[in-house]
């Protein structure tokens, strides 16, 4: 029998069942961010969320119009209980982020993880590895309270894997079974998160018939994908840095 068609008609239906308290991984590193799913989640209303992602966006500078909802928008709306990220503060020391403010105020929990360790914890979650050792962060404030262990004369820290209830993923192409291809730097965290979540929801520029993708070129096997939405012509395709450094939304 042929595989099920995992296509959903729109973003609202694809995120409709996400309950309060869910843990959600959100892909993207500048490029490859599932903006439409983030926006749909914002409109859906789920709260008490745990987010696992690289960075939440500035929140204060959400770009042109209501289309540009970032994870920081969810955080500012007090709908995030905990965030696990590689940036809880802005890289610009003069700015503060919603995460910093709510964390200082004791209104949310934020776990700061070096980016490579974050990626590896997500990879471990998808690979059935419960924990691993890494040399990163030894000798820093982040190592306080962590298990230290020496292998071959070098000191490492123990970290546990991360998994999630949902992953929001942005792909270039998908087929109807959910096989995914990413384009260039849009790949980043997306294939790792697709493997680490129980329900992976994908937004993609184009859904192709089964058989259209070369099996050797597929970055994420369809077995990891539950739902696929094709970005409509009026959806968000890219948000890039504008000439002045601000965000600029791009159509196809």
């Amino acid at each position, binding site marked *: 029998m042929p595989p099920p068609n995992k296509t959903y008609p729109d973003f609202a239906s694809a995120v409709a069942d996400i309950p309060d308290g869910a843990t959600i991984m959100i892909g993207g590193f500048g490029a490859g961010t599932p903006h439409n799913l983030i926006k749909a989640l914002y409109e859906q209303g789920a709260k008490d969320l745990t987010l696992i992602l690289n960075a939440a966006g500035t929140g204060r500078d959400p770009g042109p119009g209501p289309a540009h909802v970032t994870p920081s928008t969810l955080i500012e709306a007090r709908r995030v209980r905990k965030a696990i990220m590689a940036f809880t503060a802005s890289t610009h020391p003069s700015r503060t982020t919603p995460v910093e403010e709510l964390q200082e105020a004791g209104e949310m929990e934020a776990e700061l993880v070096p*980016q*490579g360790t974050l990626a590896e914890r997500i990879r471990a979650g998808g690979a059935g590895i419960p924990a691993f050792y890494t040399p990163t962060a030894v000798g820093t404030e*982040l190592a306080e309270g962590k298990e230290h262990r020496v292998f071959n004369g070098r000191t490492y820290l123990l970290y546990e894997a991360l998994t999630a209830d949902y992953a929001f993923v942005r792909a270039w192409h998908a087929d109807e079974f959910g096989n995914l291809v990413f384009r260039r730097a849009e790949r980043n965290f997306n294939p790792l998160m697709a493997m680490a979540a129980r329900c992976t929801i994908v937004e993609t520029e184009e859904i192709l018939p089964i058989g259209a993708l070369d099996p050797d070129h597929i970055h994420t096997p369809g077995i990891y994908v539950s739902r696929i939405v094709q970005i409509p012509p009026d959806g968000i395709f890219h948000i890039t840095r504008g000439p002045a450094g601000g965000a600029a939304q791009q159509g196809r």
Partner: protein
Amino acid sequence: MATQEKTRLTRDLMAARIAAEFQDGWIVNLGVGMPTLCSDFLPADRFIVLHSENGLIGYGRNATVEEATPYVVNAGTFPVLLQPFASIVHHADAFAVIRSGRLDVGVLGAYEVGANGDLANWKTSREKKGGGIGGAMDIAACAQRIYVLMEHTTRDGKPRLLERCNLPITAAGVVKLVMTDLGLFEPNGEGFTARELAPGFTLEEVQALTGAPLRPAPDMREVQIR
């Protein structure tokens, strides 16, 4: 030389000078901010592979507005161009390159550098809970060497080159070279060795802006790109 006008180095000059240190065959990671400028100043007679945390292996110079695509961006999410030999990996594999020690150098921005090579670049105060680590902690812990590219002083004129870092460190004892707008310096344990100074500046003038003893290199000279 004493009568020469004092000229702090531009960001482009700083980037070009540190890029001239890259050796043939090196794999190089350029941190967010000033370090990414280096991609426009790679030595033409050497083969350099630029690596980015987001999985680009083999990118090149910054893209012009006409060349830019939303798909090809560096770690700072600015559009760049791919080299013909480029390949793409996912984030975990991008950090596999880093953690396995394959980066010949990581060029990072910093808030402070210690005379012992300590690097502080993820947190602007000890009291703050949050920070912006990104990939810097992995790079600092695992690259063969770290070069720092930063302004010599803070906005209010305080030194960033110190005997010991005041801020929480990113990694201990990893910095080999510091390029500032006042010159090129090597941490030497007790202070810094000045290899090159910005045009018109004397060692004494730079020492006054530095929080650790400066020692001139035997061949100390004015900053030269090559």
